[in-house]
């Protein structure tokens, strides 16, 4: 019985997980490595890659700051609108990316609320890079916060209070006490945030205007190449994104392994506070 179940599960995984992954790499290299390389260094593709990296480089740190601030506020303090705040943080998760993009177009687009004012000042947000950055920041901002909140809530504030009584000021407490205790969650949150920022498609598609060479991110470039029937080149860029996804998974597995090690080491030493277990990701 168990063999049938295992076989079924493995078959499902094989078809739905492994096959698509392998297919990406095979298709990318289907016209040879020369074509693969050329597709990547072609100017439009290069600009797409650099735009993706730029957008991620701006939105991820911003969201980390926010995630830390929000998790800190939620976990360590009591205030009235806490559940509202938590629901608001979950908002980008529940909204379809297209609807989110639409929200920004309504706000910043020419027909939108701020459109006239922006046009007068010659500031272009929609169909230009700033719009992409804002939209990406919106859609990825829950990731860091959601990783950190359960972790900080589980630690409680005794350690910080102890630090304060020993004379540390706020910043020192944060840097030396709070941060190390959420180290793994923070790293994982950053990785996830980054993966989503680089791979986001729906929202950026609405907001960017698809201007080749200027407002195409990597996923949009994949779509454009595919629509031009240049499947092999599309797969070449998709390959890079798939590698990013694999790296994300790899970091997570490595982190879990390190965390287990720390836990075991702390248990051997005994008497010291053990490192925290990973928060359950049931609500991802």
């Amino acid at each position: 019985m168990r063999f049938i179940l295992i076989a079924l599960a493995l078959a499902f995984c094989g078809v739905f997980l492994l096959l698509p992954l392998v297919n990406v790499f095979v298709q990318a290299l289907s016209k040879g490595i020369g074509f693969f390389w050329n597709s990547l260094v072609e100017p439009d593709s290069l600009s797409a890659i650099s735009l993706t990296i730029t957008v991620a480089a701006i939105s991820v740190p911003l969201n980390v700051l926010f995630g830390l601030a929000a998790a800190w506020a939620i976990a360590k303090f009591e205030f009235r609108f806490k559940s509202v705040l938590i629901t608001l943080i979950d908002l980008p998760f529940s909204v379809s990316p297209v609807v989110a993009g639409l929200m920004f177009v309504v706000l910043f687009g020419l027909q939108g609320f701020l459109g006239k004012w922006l046009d007068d000042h010659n500031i272009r947000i929609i169909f230009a890079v700033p719009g992409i950055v804002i939209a990406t920041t919106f859609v990825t901002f829950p990731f860091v916060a959601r990783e950190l909140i359960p972790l900080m809530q589980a630690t409680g504030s005794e350690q910080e209070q102890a630090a304060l009584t020993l004379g540390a000021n706020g910043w020192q407490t944060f840097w030396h006490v709070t941060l190390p205790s959420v180290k793994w969650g923070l790293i994982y949150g950053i990785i996830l945030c980054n993966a989503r920022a680089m791979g986001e498609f729906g929202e950026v598609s609405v907001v960017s205007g698809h201007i080749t060479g200027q407002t195409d991110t990597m996923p949009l470039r994949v779509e454009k190449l595919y629509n031009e029937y240049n499947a092999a080149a599309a797969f070449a860029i998709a390959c890079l994104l798939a590698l990013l996804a694999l790296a994300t998974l790899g970091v997570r597995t490595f982190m879990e392994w390190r965390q287990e090690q720390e836990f075991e080491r702390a248990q051997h030493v005994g008497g010291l506070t053990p490192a925290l277990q990973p928060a359950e990701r049931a609500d991802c």
Partner: protein
Amino acid sequence: MGFTLTYLSALVLIPFAGLVIRACGISWHEFWQMVVSERALAAYRLTFGASFVAAIANAVFGTLLAWVLVRYDFPGRRMIDAMVDFPFALPTAVAGLTLANLFAENGWLGRFLVPLGIKGAYTSLGVILALTFVGMPFAVRTLQPVLQNLEIEIEEAAATLGAGRLRTFVSVVAPSLMPAVLTGFALAFARGIGEYGSIVFVSGNIPFKTEIAPYLIVMRLEEYNYTAAIALAVVLLVFSFLLLMGINQLEQWSARFQK
């Protein structure tokens, strides 16, 4: 604290409020007309229907996968466990691209399936398959902690009282798993409704046949028909909110069971 609030409002509340205000500007009659047009209805049918079917498939296979991963040990188990998160980490455009390629006529799977009449690409079946792919981690990851926390003593007690394996599963294990399965189902369903990137590659976006609701919104946007786009978006938003509230209730209910 102040930083949190400013950031949050600037990024989330204002755009959201903007959308709501704009939506309120549409007359009820106009709104209704745009929302129940033939094309929109077909799009909703596909979006909700396909997400529903995909979520059921994920509930079934997700349960199976979670069971196998938690209960049995076999070579490669850790690798598969890590791979379950792959659809979550992979950009949706890449997922759509590779699935469309696999199921097309000359793809690895399409080669066998198309002659059999199973057309994965450019059909609603393709949409269901893509949604199953992206929703899979939700079902599995919701179930794993619950399965891990199941007390083995209860099952042993059932065995000593004479229940066979199947009876034990149906009467003892399944009811404890039900809330988590439902939560996983709801999460996969919610994800499926909003999914855009992977579908537009796989479905071919043929109006009335394989066009999903988010795609219709984008079409209306490109026609600069903002009012129609907003009307459709509001429908999706309302449904997502209801679903989100339902999910929160489910999670609270299942938390009660755990105690």
